[in-house]
């Protein structure tokens, strides 16, 4: 019974562990905590009676059974049916596949036995505390992450230029090179400094001025005045004095301390102190890189100097007294050989040149400051091949060289630290202490957290993208819906209009013929009357009527004749008013009556011709003109095309006509032409022909940013030339988009320009200022 229950328990534990591996890293810390709990539970279990534990297990078993009833059926692990003869005295059964030896089991036993040395116990405990290392990512994945991060960084870097680019695109004029001396009046001081006394008189005057300490360059303040201007206030001075005092006191204190420490003879003390100092320095350096890169650079330079010194000196080159003695011993003593080799290695390490270049300091600094760029875990090598082995999972101590390799890729600072660590190890050669292990654990936890963060970040971004996409899709759908609606509306409207037209068309035709007959009648009447003025009046009136009659036809379905008449009368009234104004002929007085001399043949001839014409004037001129006009109109009007074929689809022959429905079907009516320009001008014929010559020079498609023709036309409407504008205006209007200075190098924009532009943009937010100065 106990065995079975144990099996269940272990199974549960196994499941948990499997969960741990399966679950995302997000759950890890919790799991660790759980493990601890388990451990504690186990301890308690051991301390308490066996029966209690039995009860616990029973309860667990029962709970599991119940849960299994409700949920999915779990596949039971294959169990051996044979009874095990041998039972381990440590409650461990190795026979069963599922019953693995767990570390906790071992520890439980070790706790009990007193024969095990304390050191081993401690080690085991440490082992227990250290956790598994997650499986390192594949090369592709890690590279992808690197690329991703690099891309993001580059994108943010570049997007900083976005505003300046758009600003330059929108600027009316750009002047290159950017750092030009501003034209126009210079400040007084600059002008004066540029000027030098040349004539003897000037020199004399300047000598006098300078002798009396009078202002030469700055015409307002003397040096004394300037000094007084520069002087501090009392409060400031007091504060500064206090600061200085404090600094001095501290300095003396530190000096005394250093002196005291120097006197101490214990080598071990110095060793420890040196180590502590180094650690401190490293930490400081790390921070310094983030906060004060300039100082870090200085430190780096110092290190470089140290390297140089090492290279110059023979300190570690086995040339010292001790080294020589070692060399003699080396033949026989392996230890001595090793020591020599170590020293040489130290030399090699110290004289190794730093990989990173100093001029790329900014990048290094950024790299150091940006933990996202290269997450540490990415570079963790696949060192623990057998991850299933819990002994191997604990990362007790790594090879320092390997660590170095890691840090090499990471960057400068870590490399430095690695190097320092190496030195420390070289000097101390102590095995890893407890605190070291703890430190490592912290480190690993930190890595884990970072990984987690990046993971979640990536997930977040993915989520966002998806959301956006789905949103866009939804919007698309909405838009299309809207469009459909509009279309539907439009088609409805169209149908209505078409119906209205078809209803009206018949009537319209009738009206048209009516008006034409009217016109005919008018012509005849006019011929008889012979009055042009009247003709034009009436004609225009009838024309108007014609138009009017068409209009109400299309809008109102039942045009009553009375209405029409009323309308036309109204029209007529209006026209008459106008006609009265314009058409009334004024007889002009001619004070000097013309006296035509009959002596001139030519004149006579002409006059005769004129007289003849005068006699027959107005006879056929008007009717001819009207005919001409009608002809022109007819050319434009659409004709009805009858496409019926007799005998096609039905019987044909003499005396047989195609059916009416068929005729109607095959009668093609073209769309009516647009209204003529001379529609309302009875005595004018305006040609409707297109001027194709000018269209060759016209713009035939709307250029990009314009939304309609009028916008574009209005922008090109006003003239730019000298004929219509003053000289200054022409210069202003036609100034070039880009101005470059002859013979100067146009450098690409520097980072500083970005800042400057930002500042200037903040100052004057007006984008459309005529000049953009940098």
């Amino acid at each position, binding site marked *: 019974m106990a065995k079975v229950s144990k099996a269940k328990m272990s199974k549960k534990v196994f499941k948990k562990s499997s969960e741990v591996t399966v679950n995302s890293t997000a759950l890890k810390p919790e799991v660790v905590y759980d493990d601890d709990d388990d451990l504690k539970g186990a301890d308690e279990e051991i301390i308490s009676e066996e029966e209690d534990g039995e009860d616990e297990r029973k309860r667990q078993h029962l709970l599991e059974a119940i849960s299994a009833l409700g949920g999915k059926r779990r596949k039971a692990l294959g169990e051996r049916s044979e009874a095990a003869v041998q039972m381990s005295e440590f409650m461990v059964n190795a026979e069963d596949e599922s019953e693995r030896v767990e570390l906790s089991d071992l520890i439980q036993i070790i706790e009990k036995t007193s024969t095990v040395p304390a050191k081993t116990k401690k080690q085991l405990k440490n082992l227990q505390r250290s956790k598994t290392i997650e499986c390192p990512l594949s090369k592709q994945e890690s590279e992808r992450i690197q690329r991703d991060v690099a891309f993001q960084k580059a994108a943010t870097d570049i997007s900083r230029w976005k505003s300046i680019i758009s600003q330059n695109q929108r600027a009316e004029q750009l002047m290159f090179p950017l750092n030009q001396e501003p034209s126009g009046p210079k400040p007084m001081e600059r002008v004066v400094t540029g000027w030098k006394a040349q004539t003897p008189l000037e020199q004399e005057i300047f000598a006098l001025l300078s002798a009396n300490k009078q202002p030469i360059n700055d015409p307002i303040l003397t040096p004394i005045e300037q000094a007084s201007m520069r002087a501090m206030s009392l409060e400031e001075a007091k504060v500064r004095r206090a600061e200085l005092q404090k600094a001095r006191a501290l300095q003396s204190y530190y000096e005394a301390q250093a002196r005291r420490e120097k006197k101490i003879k214990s080598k071990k003390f110095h060793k420890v102190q040196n180590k502590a100092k180094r650690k401190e320095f490293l930490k400081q350096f790390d921070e310094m890189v983030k906060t004060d890169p300039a100082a870090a650079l200085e430190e780096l330079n110092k290190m470089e100097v140290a390297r140089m010194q090492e290279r110059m000196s023979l300190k570690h080159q086995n040339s010292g007294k001790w080294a020589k003695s070692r060399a003699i011993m080396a033949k026989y003593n392996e230890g001595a050989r090793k020591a020599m080799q170590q020293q040489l290695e130290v030399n090699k390490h110290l004289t190794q040149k730093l990989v990173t270049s100093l001029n790329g300091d900014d990048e290094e600094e950024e790299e150091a400051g940006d933990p996202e760029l290269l997450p540490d875990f990415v570079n963790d090598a696949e060192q623990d091949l057998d991850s299933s082995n819990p002994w191997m999972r604990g990362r007790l101590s790594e090879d320092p060289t390997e660590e170095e390799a890691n840090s090499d890729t990471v960057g400068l600072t870590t490399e430095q630290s690695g190097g320092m660590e190496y030195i420390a190890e070289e000097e101390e050669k102590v095995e890893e202490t407890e605190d070291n292990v703890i430190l490592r654990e912290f480190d690993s936890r930190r890595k884990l957290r970072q990984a987690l963060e990046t993971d979640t970040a990536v997930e977040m971004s993915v989520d966002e993208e*998806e959301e956006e*996409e*789905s949103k866009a*899709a*939804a919007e698309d*759908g909405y838009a299309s819906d809207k469009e459909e609606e509009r279309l539907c509306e439009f088609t409805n409207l169209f149908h209505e209009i078409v119906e209205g037209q078809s209803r009206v068309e018949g009537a319209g035709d009738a009206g048209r013929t009516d008006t034409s007959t009217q016109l005919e009648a008018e012509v005849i009447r006019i011929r008889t009357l012979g009055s042009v003025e009247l003709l034009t009046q009436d004609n225009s009136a009838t024309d108007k009527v014609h138009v009017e009659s068409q209009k109400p036809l299309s809008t109102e379905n039942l045009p009553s004749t009375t209405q029409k008449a009323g309308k036309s009368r109204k029209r007529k009234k209006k026209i008459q008013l106008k006609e009265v104004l*314009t*058409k009334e*002929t*004024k*007889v*002009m*007085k*001619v*004070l*000097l*009556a*013309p006296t*035509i*001399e009959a002596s*001139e043949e*030519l004149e006579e001839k002409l006059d005769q011709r*004129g007289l003849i*014409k*005068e006699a027959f*004037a107005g006879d056929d*001129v008007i009717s*001819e003109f009207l005919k001409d006009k009608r002809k022109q109109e007819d050319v434009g009007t659409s004709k009805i095309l009858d496409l019926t074929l007799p005998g096609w689809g039905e019987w044909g022959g003499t005396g047989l006509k195609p059916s009416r429905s068929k005729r109607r079907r095959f009668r093609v009516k073209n769309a009516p032409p647009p209204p003529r320009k001379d529609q309302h*001008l009875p*005595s*004018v*014929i*305006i*040609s409707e022909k297109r001027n*194709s*010559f*000018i*269209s060759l*020079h*016209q713009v035939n*498609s*709307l250029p990009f*940013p314009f*939304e309609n*023709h*009028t*916008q*574009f036309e*209005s*922008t090109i*409407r*006003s*003239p730019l030339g000298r*004929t*219509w*504008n*003053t000289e*200054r*205006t022409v210069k*202003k209007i036609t100034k070039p988009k880009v101005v470059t200075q002859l013979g100067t190098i146009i450098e690409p924009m520097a980072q500083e320009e970005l800042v400057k532009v930002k500042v200037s943009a903040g100052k004057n937010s007006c984008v459309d200022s005529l000049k953009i100065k940098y």
Partner: protein
Amino acid sequence: SMAASKSDPFPGPAPIPKERVQKFKRKDKAKKPRHQHFKLRDMMKRSDEASEMSQKQAARFDLLLPEDAGFLEGDEDEDTCTISQEDIAEAVDITSGAKYFNLKLSQFGPYRVDYSKTGRHLLLGGRRGHVACIDWQSKHLMCEINVMESVNDVKWLHSEAMYAVAQKKWLYIYDSNGIELHCIRKFNDVLRMQFLPYHFLLATASATSFLQYLDVSVGKEVAAFCTKTGRLDVMCQNPHNAIIHLGHPNGTVTLWSPNQKEALVKMLCHQGGVRSVTVDKTGMYMVTSGLDKKLKVYDIRAFKPLKSYFLPAGASCLSLSQRGLLSAATGDVVQVYRDVWSAPVTKPYMAHRVRGSVWGLHFCPFEDVLGVGHGDGFTSMLVPGAGEPNFDGLDANPYRSAKQRQEWEVKALLEKIQPELISLDPTELGYVDRATFEQRHRDRVQALGYDPLAKEKFVPKYKKKGRSSAGAVERRKKQVAHEDQRDEIRKTVEDKMKMEKEIKERAQKKAALSNQKSALDRFKK
């Protein structure tokens, strides 16, 4: 500090009177729609600003045109038309008084008259062959010839160095020394001429009802149309848009451009034949006179009659001055009218009787002078308020030297406007061509003489051994046509498939994005 403490009593730029600004208006402000692209907004804003600035600057610089125009004003109960030329010449200063003179040339008259663009030079063409050009202000005779032929019309070309004479048969070009430069045989029986100064075009109207355009800068005939309206002896130009107006015996006035074979506009103006036509400088008004003894004023932009006057004697010649004075010759009397289009006129502003019937009438540019060519010679009349007092030194400078004239000639040639740009609306070039693609293609085909996009027709190869029989050839043709059709069908089908595929893909993508699983998804592959 002193300067700073004193505040400017007139801060900002000097104000410009509104009317003056309005005078130089270039365009209306464009309406701003609500949703605008920032680029478009910037462009529109800049254009508006530029036009406003240029308008204001021009208005401000109008101050530099100091000359004022005045009119003759009579005493109370005194008609200005009764004041004789001699009185006026006596009253005005000597130089102006010298501008009234008579040239008695009774032998070869009557005379046609033309002033050069600057107004300095006068060209006289006697009906009986006498041609003379005179620097009329200094009375310096530049040349005088007799072409020994009847002269129908004379016209200065772009400068005073050359002039065209329409003689009995051909058109001749002479230089200012009277040397014959060209005899243009393509232009025959020319009756009237007009010179379009900015296009360098000489338009001629002939007795054979031909309207021809000669590009004097390259010496080529630009266009020639048969108007089919008989003898063309009435002609004028619209200085605003370089359209030629022709008057016809059937009472119509037709408008022509070198780009269209038929008249742009045909207006019925008079009951009888049209005797004379003239258009004012701004291109707004046209004045016609006909055999029906009427004088009509038209708004030529809308083609609508504005005013109609009855002249008992009828006007044989009409001329409009730069400032809008109308001169009309009725027999041997020259009458000048003011404000013919704005207010109803009952009596003339000025009148003058010349000896012999008037044959040519021309206002002198930039001078208050009207040149009258008549049967007994030439009369230079003083008409106060006729000429534009301020001249544009870069366009037509009456005081220019020979060197300046040469420079101007070069510049004018560089700025020559092509004849294709002549149209009723001179701003048409600034409009977007809204014609359809088909229309434009048709134009192109017409211009090129062939269809550049047309597919070449299949011509079956001749094959021997009886394989080129009519039936075989027909079959081959059919085959090719069939192949073409198949290609087309294939293409359309492919397009359709592609479209469908795209639609499907889009739908799939949408479904994937919306992430809604249906019960039937399990059957998907």
